[in-house]
């Protein structure tokens, strides 16, 4: 097992290294001078030239790349060209915001998706099954940025029951410790903040959860159907075990593997794919951080931002793989 983890981690290195290289090349191929962007339309030509020199943008690209790698080895993610702050210092709040949103979304997706899937499988061909599966099908086909806007319109503007944007009530801000606001409210005992923070999570969370929820529901349903047709569930039923018990204990345990894969995959997608959701809901997350950095040609932020997201994505997949063997000891690694 340890051996396997070690091997996987080793394999990671060339992938991440290759990524830095590709990102580095791509962003430097983007036309547009960061110095011009940073200083804006009103800046003079001398100011732009001076800034280019300070930022080291006059160096040949391979030297810049080498410098960047050298920094990475020592744990330095570079310094934002725009704010002149180390990326390491500024990235955490963004990352935390996105992780909180993604975890919330995946929780909604799993709780609703798995349960809907089980009930659908249980009452196969019932009205609930049909309704759930139709909704799931529509869910997978949903352009989530559109869904987000529609939800915002209906629930915030027309009905006025949920906040439109942001993470907190700005008039009564959350004191941050970890930057996971929900956690922070508990740590610092700001219990009255919990419902507020939750409410801010609802709209972006459900928008983000829609697709994984639909996929998980369908996946759970089909694997549940398979498992329920299997002999041992039939035997269990025949032995008169309580139905709910059978379903949740035996069947779910077998159905969980493919569902887990989906969760792992979707969690990764959520991390990076939240750009649109974060824009619509003004969520100060990593997707928007990187997206805006592209606009500002803030090379170190783009490079390191993507690197961090990719790293987390790969790690999640590793953890999911390891969970397989934990859940189902029959799966072995070589």
């Amino acid at each position, binding site marked *: 097992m340890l051996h396997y983890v070690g091997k996987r981690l080793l394999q990671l290195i060339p992938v991440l290294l290759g990524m830095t290289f590709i990102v580095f090349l791509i962003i430097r191929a983007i*036309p547009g001078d960061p110095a011009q*962007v940073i200083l804006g339309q009103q800046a003079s030509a001398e*100011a732009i030239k001076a800034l280019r020199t300070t930022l080291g943008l006059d160096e040949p690209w391979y030297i810049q790349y080498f410098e960047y790698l050298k920094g990475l080895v020592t744990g330095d993610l570079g310094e934002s060209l725009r704010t002149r702050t180390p990326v390491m210092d500024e990235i955490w709040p963004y990352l935390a915001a996105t992780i909180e949103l993604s975890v919330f979304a995946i929780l909604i997706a799993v709780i609703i998706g798995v349960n809907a899937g089980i009930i659908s499988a249980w009452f196969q061909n019932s009205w609930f099954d049909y309704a759930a599966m139709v909704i799931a099908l529509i869910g997978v086909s949903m352009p989530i940025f559109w869904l987000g806007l529609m939800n915002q319109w209906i629930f915030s503007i027309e009905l006025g029951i949920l906040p439109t944007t942001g993470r907190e009530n700005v*008039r009564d801000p959350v004191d941050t410790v970890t930057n996971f606001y929900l956690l922070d409210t508990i740590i610092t005992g700001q219990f009255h903040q919990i419902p507020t923070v*939750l409410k801010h999570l609802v709209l972006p969370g459900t928008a983000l959860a829609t697709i994984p929820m639909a996929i998980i529901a369908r996946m759970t349903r089909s694997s549940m159907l398979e498992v329920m047709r299997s002999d041992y569930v039939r035997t269990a039923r025949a032995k008169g075990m309580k139905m709910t018990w059978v379903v949740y204990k035996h069947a779910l345990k077998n159905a969980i593997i493919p569902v887990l894969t989906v969760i792992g995959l979707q969690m990764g997608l959520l991390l990076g794919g939240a750009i649109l959701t974060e824009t619509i809901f003004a969520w100060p997350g990593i997707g928007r951080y990187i997206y805006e950095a592209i606009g500002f040609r803030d090379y170190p932020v783009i490079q390191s931002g993507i690197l961090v997201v990719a790293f987390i994505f790969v790690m999640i997949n590793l953890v999911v793989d390891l969970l397989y063997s934990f859940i189902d000891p029959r799966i072995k690694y070589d």
Partner: protein
Amino acid sequence: MRKNKILSLAFLMLLLVSTALYGCNSDNASDDNGDAKEENGDSGEPKTLIFGRGGDSVSLDPITVTDGESYKVTKNIFDTLVNFGEQDTEIHPGLAKEWTPAEDGLTYNFVLEEGVKFHDGTDFNAEAVVANFERWAGGDADQFPYYGSMFGGFGDEEGHVIESVTAVGDFEVEFKLKRPQAPFLKNIAMSSFGIASPTAFEEMGDKFGDSPVGTGPFKFVEWKRNDTITIEKFEDYWVDGEPKLDTVVFRSLPDNSARLNALLSGEIDLADGITPADSATVEGDDNLQLFERPSMNVGYLGLTTTREPFDDPKVRQAMNYAIDKQAIVDAFFEGRGDVAKNPIPPAISGYNDDIEAYPYDPEKAKELLAEAGLEDGFEMELYAMPVPRPYMPDGEKVAEAIQKNLADIGVTAEIVSYEWATYLEKAANGEADAFLLGWTGDNGDADNFIYVLLDQDNIGSNNYTYYENQELHDILIEAQTEVDEDVRNELYAKAQEIIHEDAPWVPLAHSTPLLAGGKNVVNFKAHPTGSDKLASVDLE
């Protein structure tokens, strides 16, 4: 039986979830909206104003930045020696209560306010002013970009206008200039030149921009990047009775519709960058009011004079006749703006109102094209701005309307767009046939429009059309050092005639940028420069 049990269980769950959600919702109303209103209504409670805007600040050290989103905040943390008027760019006393310029325009003597304190408790005095100017003059174009462009350079550089800044008393400062600079007072009124606490910037160095210390009405509290910047009332502010608010929170909401939605739901009190399209929504809402920012900008269609067929003034004039500017202003500025005929807005001293605008006349345009040998029209690329700017709320839509106008005179325009950075670069390189662009004045001076945008010195920089005219150049250089206002205005009047005739632009509009706020926001006066002092703003 069992089936039913599970079904009812599922039902129960659903009910539970929905009640829980409903519970949340009803809380919310009191939480995000109700509370706020109660707070504001009761004078004993702290007053918090949430200002929603399009982006985050870059740094809060005003001298190091060039972006409007930074100045919006620093304007309230720092004071300048002299101030602009409430809604114009006339010069009023600031930290300097009076000043006397010498006859030759080479010396300025400022008498400072006494008893002013920085937020860190240190005293504001002549030494502090000197320290600030020394810090700036000792920098370079990379550190302090606006200092260089407004005062011609740094330190011993040839172009540097300021020869010396000396404290001639505890509260008296003398500026010596190498040559007269007509807009000198307007320059030092710019937000960039806010006076900072010397103790603080010496101590913090590069980090000063993260925790700024000035003498302004509000002091810095907290910055959550890309989210909020919080400033709070400075109890020892030197102006009596100000500020009225206890806390101001600047919140970044980059998406226009998200910002409007936040305003409609009461999550923010004031929203910047309201699109003309949204003005109807705001006006239709009894709880909201609309604020107009007096126009100090120009939006135009630039015609690159080095590219065929725009190297021919006839073709450029034809474009001026072909475009129905009034219709564009009516539809995409919703009438919130004036059709432009000059490169400077009417509010600016030196505006030439005798110029007769090119009327919308497609027939005349066709004639001119025929004279230029282009009776069959031609094909061109039309650059459309990818981002909304205060001078043009929606570049792409304006481009679509222009495309239609041009089609009517037989010109086929293909709309192209690039990301903002690339867009500016390509335009600066002269790669565009015709491009939409605009300018917001920095200090309300004509030089800051005409010289910056149309003089041959600025080709490759802000003169995107590559327009060159020696006569114009001579006039503009003369105007820079002319201290007599009337003579100077004469020069600019002439300059505008030349530009009108040569037609390197199709001036489109002087837009009125819009803001919206709750009905309870009082005394908010939007400033034409785009950064607003909130000292006298109150919530009722």
